[in-house]
């Protein structure tokens, strides 16, 4: 297949998979087989684009023209390539994990679960490869709607209430703020295409530009900048595989990815550098980093602690991008991949603990490392990645972000990163310490590790977290290509 065909087919592939999953609904083994095959094929398709993109190619394709001048069109650039690679690669272990988790918990409506999951991944591919803001918005909304049934999967009142928060915040920000920004952009510049130097330069005044930046940044609710972050903890009522792949990787990364895309290809980094009205952005992001960490510190529910950690880590990406320095932007792009591997490992481990030991609270985890050594070892690696300590990949992205901030002389950003590193250590490392070095409660029933598929998935993602530290070249190359023009 030519790269162009692959680009057009990539978002479609999971949708076809979704239809097949639905058709195979009555035969669980076949159904899960379809999920795995779809995930594998999707990754191969995405990976096949890599050589072209690394060689400087920008394969593009058009699905259809929705409104005159506004097409559902795709164009693969380094950032989208990176995001698509991460999401499609992690879908494979996540599917394995889902099979173990959903069967172990005897969840109902599993067909709906896998169908929605596939649709969500298709939407993610659409976001990653979007060639214009309009396409991105269409898939952004599709991602919100396809993940709603996953968040409310259990159908219990608390899930429905959380679903209301989830949908309410994400749809109201995207329709009320983001769509307004998109329409204003369209009206001002007559195009929504992603162009290397941005499309807004010289079309509107500085005040309007600053306002537009705010509309975009807060309208992209999936980036979870405070105060638009409440939906993410709410989404934690979902089954663990959903929290792992969607609310640690696909959905939230779609948010920061969109913010980066808007900053680079709609505004243009050079335009933003000269925009005094955009100076608030690092402060909002920095405040989110610190505040979310402080809240995480106080959470006893493991998944909630992870969720607030995600809020904080996402804000890193925006914070680094707001430095507007090539190194920092490369760090921000790299962090999309780095955080994905670390956080999915942590969620996998949390789900394994829940499956094997039925525990959800941090305070119950004393001594659990002896019963679940693999799980907690993986958890430890994930934690190190969050803190940013070698040999976990989180170190690499943090290194770039710090270097960029120092080079740009942004002391505030440096201070935020240092402080948050301490906070991260304060809310992750005690969990690891307690698990391995505190004696378990003898009154508790004995249990071993979680089922094999779960274990396989979390070992794989933990291995990825370490491997990516040793071999960061590929994502770094993509990140550096993104910023090459700025250096």
């Amino acid at each position, binding site marked *: 297949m030519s790269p162009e065909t692959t680009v057009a087919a990539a978002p479609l592939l999971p949708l076809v998979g979704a239809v097949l999953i639905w058709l195979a609904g009555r035969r669980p083994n076949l159904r899960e087989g379809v999920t795995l095959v779809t995930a594998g094929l999707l990754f191969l398709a995405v990976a096949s684009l890599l050589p072209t993109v690394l060689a400087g190619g920008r394969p593009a394709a058009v699905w*259809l*023209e*929705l*409104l*005159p*001048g506004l097409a559902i069109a795709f164009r693969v650039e380094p950032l989208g390539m990176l995001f698509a690679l991460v999401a499609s690669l992690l879908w494979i272990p996540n599917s394995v994990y889902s099979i173990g988790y959903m069967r172990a918990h005897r969840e109902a409506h599993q067909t709906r679960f896998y169908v929605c999951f596939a649709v969500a991944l298709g939407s993610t591919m659409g976001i990653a490869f979007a060639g214009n803001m309009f396409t991105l*918005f*269409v898939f952004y*909304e*599709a991602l919100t*709607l396809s993940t709603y049934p996953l968040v*409310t999967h259990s*159908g219990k*009142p608390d899930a*429905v209430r959380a679903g*209301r928060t989830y*949908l*309410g915040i994400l*749809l*109201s920000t995207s*329709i*009320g703020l983001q*769509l*307004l920004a998109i*329409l*204003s952009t*369209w*009206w001002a510049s*007559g195009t929504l295409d992603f162009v290397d130097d941005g499309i807004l330069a010289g079309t509107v005044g500085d005040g309007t530009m600053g306002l537009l930046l705010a509309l975009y940044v807060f309208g992209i609710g999936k980036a979870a900048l405070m105060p638009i972050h409440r939906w993410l903890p709410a989404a934690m009522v979902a089954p663990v595989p959903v929290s792992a792949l969607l609310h640690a990787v696909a959905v939230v990364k779609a948010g920061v990815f969109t913010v980066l895309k808007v900053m680079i290809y709609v505004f243009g980094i050079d335009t933003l550098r000269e925009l005094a009205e955009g100076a608030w952005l690092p402060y909002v992001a920095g405040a989110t980093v610190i505040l979310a960490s402080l809240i995480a510190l106080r959470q006893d529910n493991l998944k909630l602690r992870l969720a607030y950690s995600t809020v904080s880590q996402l804000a890193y990406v925006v914070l680094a991008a707001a430095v507007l320095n090539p190194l920092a932007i490369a760090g921000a792009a790299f962090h999309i991949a780095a955080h994905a591997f670390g956080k999915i490992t942590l969620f996998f481990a949390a789900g394994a603990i829940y499956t094997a030991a039925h525990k959800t609270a941090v305070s119950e985890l004393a001594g659990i490392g002896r019963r679940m050594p693999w799980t907690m070892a993986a958890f430890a690696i994930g934690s190190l990645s969050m803190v940013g300590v070698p040999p976990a990949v989180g170190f690499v992205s943090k290194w770039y972000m710090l270097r960029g901030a120092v080079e740009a002389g942004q002391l505030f950003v440096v201070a935020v990163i240092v402080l948050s590193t301490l906070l991260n250590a304060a809310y992750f490392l005690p969990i690891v310490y307690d698990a391995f070095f505190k004696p378990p409660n003898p009154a508790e029933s004995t249990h071993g590790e979680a089922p094999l598929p779960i274990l396989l998935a979390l070992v794989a993602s933990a291995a990825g977290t370490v491997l990516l530290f040793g071999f960061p070249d590929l994502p770094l190359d993509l990140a550096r290509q993104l910023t090459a023009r700025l250096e």
Partner: protein
Amino acid sequence: MITPHLPVLQVVLPLLAAPVCVLLRNGRLAWLLALVVGWVSLLIAVLLLVRVLDGPPLSYAIGGWAPPWGIEYRIDRLNAFLLVIVATIDAVVLVYARASVEREIDPDRVYLFYAAFLLCFTGLLGIAATGDAFNLFVFLEISSLSSYALIAMGRDRRALTAAYQYLIMGTIGATFILIGVGLAYMVTGTLNMADMADRLVGLTGNRTVRVAFAFLTVGLSLKLALFPLHLWLPNAYAYAPSTVTAFLAATATKVSVYALLRFTFSIFGADVAFEVLPLDLILPPLAILAMFVGSLVAIFQDDVKRMLAYSSVAQIGYIVLGISFASLDGLTAGIVHLFNHALTKGGLFLALGCVFYRLGSVRLKDMRGLGQRMPLAMAAFVVGGLGLIGVPLTAGFVSKWYLVVAALGNGWWPVAVLVLASSLLALVYVWRVVEVVYFQPAPREHSEVREAPLSMVLPTWLLIGASVYFGVDTSVTVGVARSAAAFLLQAPLGAGP
């Protein structure tokens, strides 16, 4: 051979079929006749649209009396588009009607129902097709009187008061329209629309002309249920038989909007409306109030049909808002939304009709857990609801896109903000239903409830499917609407954003 007579056949066919229905005295045969007439009318409407899209307007002199003395039927891009909308909805709704009407109307009155239905259809087609101002009033009365009868046929006794309320309000509106037409006739001495438009040129300062236009605007606003003249609408929609609600909601108000467009832009001219008279100051606030009040009230309804009725009040606000911009983009948005909303709301009311068919109620508390029992109808409701919110890839998104672009084009960015903000209210009232339908356990007495018959589910999905299709492929709808808007403004077809 028959082609030159298409404009009149469009109207005469259902008109003649109505008394035949009465003579048949058989519900099933009457339905069959109405169905055939509906589909033939659709065919005629499509043929007419194809002909006027790449040619000049068609003129037909009734009885061979040349206009402006005789009655002229005049088909141009705008009303050809409207004829297609009305005929499409009619054809689809009639497929649906058989099962639904058997359940909701007394068997010995079914043939009368179809007679009234055909008359109402005739009236709506006539309003669209005619080129004569008084003839328009006549058809308006035909459609109104038959719709009073149709609404009163609802099983709920409150249908009678609803019909009565509509009768009073509708008659006031019709009277205003008649006074307006009469005053215009007084000044121009003609009832032919084209002729009247010619003679009104240069009379913009004339007080009689201004008064005529004011009466027409108020009368038509009442018929199209512009806030605060919408009071007749919620009850009428809520208590009418399901088929009637779907048909009227999708067509009746839209035809009145057309009449307003026709009088404003083609006859009196935009300068009378927007320069001599301050319509650009009156309509937008009312439209915006309609958007918000309609949606807010919809949020608090327990009867889902009523909820959708109030949602209609809000959606009419969007249409009128687009028109009040008096720009190419604004008119395009208004006309496109006319079409998109007809499909969406028609489909939604049909989905509710499916529920009523099985449950005999469309109250929220009776619809608990219905997502499992009637998955197809409820899925249609969700998709239609997404269209009301204006989610991308639904027709509602396309309308809102143009509406906001038009608002920004006029420099009215607060209006753009309000349009988007009001969409969020739609999210609230739609999701209230979604949560009840999908997440609350079904009451035990509903264990026997199944999906409605295919003859009802299929038309529902036809309209809902169309509302999605026209959200993806907009070349036809936007193209025709833009062309009609340009025709109204007599501006060259621009390539604007």
